[in-house]
């Protein structure tokens, strides 16, 4: 998939409480969760962002809780994909399982600024900063994760496996 949108830049260690505060976890409705996406990192984020925009962050994005509500909220908010220097382990898994495209790209994360226009090819991992003209290469998605994506997420992957076995 190719996504084009505006970057919103965040720093190191953006935790899942910042992505979706636990006070809103008394529902698992993605639309309700999306209203509070990134609220404790930037209270005005949802007013400022547009559907198709891209979150860019430094190291350890999504650290903390195992809540799948975090990638769900980001996806339901309309964020096209997340680029970070590194992702916390559980968030990384959850993003693939819920179908939120994520890319690890240290140099891109360090250089991209809020407001930059990006074009991202999630298949090749190529990240173009249309504002500065610079291009970056994300780490390739591991083949097993790619298989999950191709099957349409973990549950679809399991369904497919149970039918073929």
């Amino acid at each position, binding site marked *: 998939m190719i996504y084009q949108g505006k970057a919103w830049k965040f720093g190191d260690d953006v*935790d899942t409480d910042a992505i979706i505060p636990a006070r809103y*976890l*008394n529902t*698992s409705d993605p639309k309700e969760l999306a209203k509070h996406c990134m609220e404790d990192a930037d209270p005005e984020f949802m007013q400022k962002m547009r559907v198709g925009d891209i979150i860019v962050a430094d190291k350890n994005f999504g*650290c903390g809780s*195992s809540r799948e509500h975090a990638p769900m909220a980001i996806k339901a908010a309309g964020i096209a994909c997340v680029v970070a220097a*590194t992702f916390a*382990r559980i968030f990384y*898994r*959850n993003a693939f399982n819920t179908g939120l495209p994520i890319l690890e790209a240290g140099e891109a994360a360090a250089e991209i600024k809020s407001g930059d226009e990006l074009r991202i090819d999630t298949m090749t991992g190529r990240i173009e900063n249309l504002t500065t003209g610079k291009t970056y290469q994300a780490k390739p998605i591991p083949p097993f994760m790619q298989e999950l994506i191709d099957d349409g997420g973990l549950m679809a992957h399991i369904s497919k496996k149970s039918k073929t076995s």
Partner: protein
Amino acid sequence: MAMTITEKILAAHAGCDEVRPGQLIEARVDVALANDVTAPIAIAEFEQLGIEKVFDPDRVILVPDHFTPNKDINSAEQAKVVRDFSRRQQLTNYFEQGRVGIEHVLLPEQGLVLPGDLIIGADSHTCTYGALGAFATGVGSTDLAAAMATGKAWFKVPESIKLVYHGTPGPWVEGKDLILYTIGRLGVDGALYQSMEMQGEAIEKLPMYGRFTMANMAIEAGAKNGIITPDEITLDYVRERSTRDYHLFFSDPGAEYVYEMDIDVSRIKPQVAFPSLPENSRAVAAAVEQGITLDQVVIGSCTNGRIEDLRLAAKVLQGKKVAPYLRLIVIPGTQAIYLQAVREGLVEIFVEAGAVFSTPTCGPCLGGHMGILAAGEKALATTNRNFVGRMGHPESEVYLSNPAVAAASAVLGRIASPEEVVS
């Protein structure tokens, strides 16, 4: 080929003779766990699969502990989803309010997680069970739903790091201080994707409750799991509780570690983690020096809600009063601990001191209920995370410590060392 304890447990559950770091495996899970926040999504995913029954009604464990007793209508609806599913699936281990406890205190207490097990839970602090010599890790709801259906999960075998603790801890130094200090050294992503193997003479002498505290916070260094070699202390804990057979695994001499770190516990003072990351840990003296006044103190959680933690707090609070305008909230981890605290007279000490004594719940730890902070307020908690907004308003602040430091601070109304209160 020499393997670590983590590699051995993963290999045994994947049906392989050996596994290597980086290898992708599909492994059998002994327990699949979720709570009232994460189970509703897992249940919805499970039901979409069109599979009628969970893989094993004894091994899918649902613990509604986060927003219970139901804090509002939405939470009640979520708890109801969990209850209805548990009834429909006839789950052996569903815990209703009044019997429920904080999941990571409850499961070991009930003998439902055991040495050598492979446990996944839709809760990041599932890594607590590594204290028993089990492989336990947090996953999301979708991974959990898949395991509920198939009894299996996929894993990338993690690399291991070895943390060797030696020396004798000084006064008021607990498992909490060792792990806060360790996270301070490693950073919140210092063990990202890795297994933290904790060993050495100081761990061999550490009682089970301190081991649970340490394994519990492995995730705060980004680790996939934390694990402690099982020994006589483990077996004494497990023997009287186990609900089924279990196996002991040990790292081989010559097993590979990315690196080893030596930690001299005799040099570690009681720690306080400053806002807003657990890695901001410093000796309590640094906080005392700054004169940090507090609005609330919370003693409890899956990190420090065990009977020994409450005894420690009671020892400091005995005959003392909570400072004016400060709320002290004490939360036992389970109903059994609650009852034990009543029988031992601990509850009397807490209530006479002017504390709130609550039913078991995760409540304030994640800013759910039972002690939410207003803007500008400061709390000291024995919990595991001090992220921005973790216990309430995004402009509130959370500090982390052991129960003795928390109790002393509740008495003096500012972050304090236990020595200032107990002679």
